[in-house]
């Protein structure tokens, strides 16, 4: 056996470890720098080619064209505004006429209207007849017609009286309306 020294302890090579660290660090820095650069360029290009400027330009062109027909635009706007106001008023208007039609169509022979009262929420109609049966038929007719009418909330008989000086009976019927939309 020759007398050679064998070193069994691993020698720490400080410089190569440092170099590896440095290489990794340099690579990391380069990747980060490149990433920042690429993202910046992409953002710059996105901003450069943003369609907002062309949209605004087109808007201005359209506004100029609309301004040239300003009178027509104002008229159109007024017409639409007024039609919606008319529709709103009509929808909120209590349907007195429909209710009065409903009451008057049930007037049979011998039954006459003697009075009428309208207010915001009800229609009262006073009818006269020499026959109680006719008044009964009138009342039943009004009740039947009101059943399928969504505008009517309730029907009530307010009074029934006989006149001292004539042979007529007077009956007052109150039709309560549902609130308009």
């Amino acid at each position, binding site marked *: 056996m020759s007398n050679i020294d064998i070193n069994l302890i691993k020698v720490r090579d400080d410089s190569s470890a440092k170099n590896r660290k440095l290489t990794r660090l340099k690579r990391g820095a380069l990747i980060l720098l490149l990433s920042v650069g690429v993202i910046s360029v992409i953002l710059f290009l996105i901003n450069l080619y943003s369609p907002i400027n062309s949209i605004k330009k087109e808007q201005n062109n359209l506004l100029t064209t609309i301004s040239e027909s300003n*009178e027509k635009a104002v008229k159109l706007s007024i017409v639409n505004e007024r039609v919606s106001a008319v529709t709103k008023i009509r929808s909120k208007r209590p349907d007195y006429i429909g209710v009065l039609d409903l009451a008057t169509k049930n007037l049979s022979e011998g039954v006459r209207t003697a009075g009428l009262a309208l207010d915001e929420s009800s229609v009262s109609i006073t009818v006269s007849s020499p026959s109680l049966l006719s008044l009964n038929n009138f009342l039943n007719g009004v009740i039947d017609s009101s059943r399928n009418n969504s505008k009517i909330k309730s029907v009530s008989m307010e009074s029934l009286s006989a006149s001292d000086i004539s042979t007529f009976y007077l009956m007052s019927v109150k039709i309560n309306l549902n609130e308009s939309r």
Partner: protein
Amino acid sequence: MNKKVNLNAEILKTIYEENKEFLLPIGVIFISILLLIFFIFPEFNGYFQKREAVLMEQEKLNNLKESLSAISSIDDSILSQDLEIVSRALPPNKDFAAILNAISQAASVTGVSLGDFEFQIGDITKTNTTPASTPSIKISLNITADTLSTVAFLKELEKSVPISQVAGAKSSGSFASIEVVFYYKPFPPQGATDPEKIRPVTAANQKIIDDIEIPVGLDFESQLIPQVTTTPL
């Protein structure tokens, strides 16, 4: 153990000499991080905001295109006619002549006799602004008519223009007292027309206009032909 470390210039120089190769990449990383924080992230944020702004502007553009298409598609003479009809249905001011015409027309059609009437004009010092609700004038009138004729009169009045609403009525024998509300609506102030919101008259709206009955032979043009604004939008 209380070890004292002396960081004198010599030691610092040695440390610098040993690690100076690291300084450049560390500096680059530091600058890149700074760029990320102070430039890229705000730009990203701005990008999303810009995207939202683009969408909004695109919507605005589409609205303007619709407005222009509405303006181009309608015939000016039809529009003027529609404007006249709706302005008679809903006058821009308290149009007493039109109200009296409507009442007398309803009376003549149904054959009732008109008695006294009274206008409740309201505050005449108020300026002509467009309130949220539609302003109105209340009129109380007495008529000589039986109940059925009163009903016919109310029906006729409801069909007439200016648009009205019966606020109350009391009929007994051959007399009736009626309260009617007539509506009006001032024109919007000059420049109030939003160019983005101009829309064509829809078929449903055109039907409403066509259904408005304008009395024939009544001449109140001078008061009712609307004067529209012509200032730039």
